[in-house]
């Protein structure tokens, strides 16, 4: 049972556009297995379909061709069984609910009892270190704190798989690094399988067990890199030699298949220092 992959993608294509319009092939021939408890990052230039791939795994959109099996069942069945926790780039918290009630939302929809909701929300918010902010409203929190609430909410009904779509893309680099450590800590404690879309190379390497490198037009998997950095990882990990080697390996894989280069500037191809400067602007 445990050898069975949590996610199995076979021959997945995604074509956008109707019959009468020019078509765009967003994804072509995607084969990927994700094992239980893995942390897998999807990285690639914009337009490589990495977010689309995540949305296909989560059954927010369906593939044109190919098979998506999650937990041994079709993706739609998995979604109906509530096997997914989703975190988007925007926190998507509801203004009218307190932090606590936002985290309770998926449990309410699931039909969980009041006591369990109460307890789960508290546990999850303590996990993301927001135990003191239960009664606050979203507008009273910073961007990073809001995203932590979103993570707590995604974990609320113990999903088999956590799908994260550039969750820290809108945060500055300092906050992003702090959130990265936070996510790793949460992942290590919960043992959830994570699929993580990013366009930051340092982020992908720091977090992942495997980095899936994609190319654009059509979106294909060009390389899968095993990240053998020891765990638990910490800020010191970012200064090890192996870390830099892996960052370089991912960067070269991206460059080799990056196409004509028109998308390269959208990627954090530069060293972590440069991305930090970029983050400070945003």
């Amino acid at each position, binding site marked *: 049972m445990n050898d069975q992959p949590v996610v199995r993608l076979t021959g997945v294509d995604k074509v956008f556009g109707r019959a009468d319009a020019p078509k765009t092939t967003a994804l072509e021939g995607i084969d990927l297995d994700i094992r239980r408890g893995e942390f897998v990052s999807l990285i690639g230039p914009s337009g490589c379909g990495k977010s689309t791939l995540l949305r296909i795994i989560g059954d927010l959109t369906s593939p044109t061709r190919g098979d998506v099996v999650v937990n041994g069942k079709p993706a739609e069945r998995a979604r109906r069984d509530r096997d997914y*926790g989703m975190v988007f780039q925007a926190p998507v918290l*509801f*203004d*009218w609910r307190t932090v606590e009630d936002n985290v309770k939302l998926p449990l309410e*929809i699931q039909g969980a009892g009041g006591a369990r909701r109460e307890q789960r929300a508290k546990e999850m918010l303590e996990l993301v270190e927001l135990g003191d902010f239960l009664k606050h*409203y979203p507008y009273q929190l*910073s961007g*990073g704190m809001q995203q932590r609430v979103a993570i707590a909410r995604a974990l609320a009904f113990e999903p088999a798989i956590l799908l994260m779509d550039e969750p820290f893309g809108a945060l500055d680099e300092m906050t992003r690094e702090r959130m990265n450590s936070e996510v790793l800590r949460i992942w290590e404690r919960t043992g959830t399988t994570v699929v993580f879309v990013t366009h930051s190379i340092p982020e992908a390497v720091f977090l992942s067990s495997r980095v899936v490198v994609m190319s654009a037009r059509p979106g294909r998997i060009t390389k899968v890199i095993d990240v053998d950095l020891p765990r638990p990882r910490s800020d010191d990990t970012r200064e090890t030699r192996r870390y830099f080697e892996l960052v370089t390996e991912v960067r070269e894989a991206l460059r080799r298949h990056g196409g004509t280069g028109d998308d390269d500037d959208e990627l954090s191809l530069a060293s972590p220092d440069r991305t930090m400067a970029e983050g400070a602007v945003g």
Partner: protein
Amino acid sequence: MTTTAGDLAGRRGLPASGGRAGSSSRGGRWLRTLRYYLPSVVVFAAGIVAWELLVGLINLQTFIFPKPSAIVAALQANWGGGRFALLPSAQATLVEALGGLAIGTVAGVAVAFATARWVSARAALLPLAVAANAIPIIAFAPLMNNWFGVLSPLSKMMMAATLVFFPVMANVTRGLVQVEPGALELMRSYAASEWTILRKVRVPNALPFFFTALKLGATLSLIGAIVGEYFGGASLVLGRIIVQSASALRFDVTWAAILLGAGTGIAFYLLIVALERVVMPWHASLRGGES
């Protein structure tokens, strides 16, 4: 929008929930409120004094432009009784406006839910609503009197209701439909039913839109009721008093009636603002933070 954790400390607690704010910060807020309104109050008072003095100074005919003091005197003299009894008239007009607001709001919300639920209804009704919004609906007042009885308050209520209906319908529809796409994806990932999405996302999302329409509607319903009254009906209503006192050249009474109508409108509006703050503390306080 992005803020650091550091500036959280600088933000206020939950302003609308009263008890949380300490008594010292509450005193500070009163002072700030006072400072905010003080210029308007001063300008208003100065305007009244200037009006009073100017009317005497340039020897204006008082029946054209009565002094504020004369208006207040007329208000007192005609407060409870007589041909121009103001208080019962204002009460009658308020009942018409309230009735109209209730009818128009219920109808507007009902149609909004239908248009939000069925795309085909939206396609058919929204262009009509937009077109209807461009019509000077007030022109229908004589017809309303004809349809619902010139002496019945219902004819005035229906005039008010028609004015209230369109903004309520258009706003609430927008609130139900214009939901953040991310929120819908999130609900989809929870395998939530349409009914759940309506209750947990669309309705709360529409609340601010609803209150915006309601504030507009409060003013519109008074306009509808008073204009409806202009075209005839029971005599102890503000609209009739305005028409009849003016034709009797009792302009001090006319002004007193207008003053009372203005006061009613402002009170009506403030009531809805207060209701809004109770129903959506998260939203009212948000706007408070921006001002």
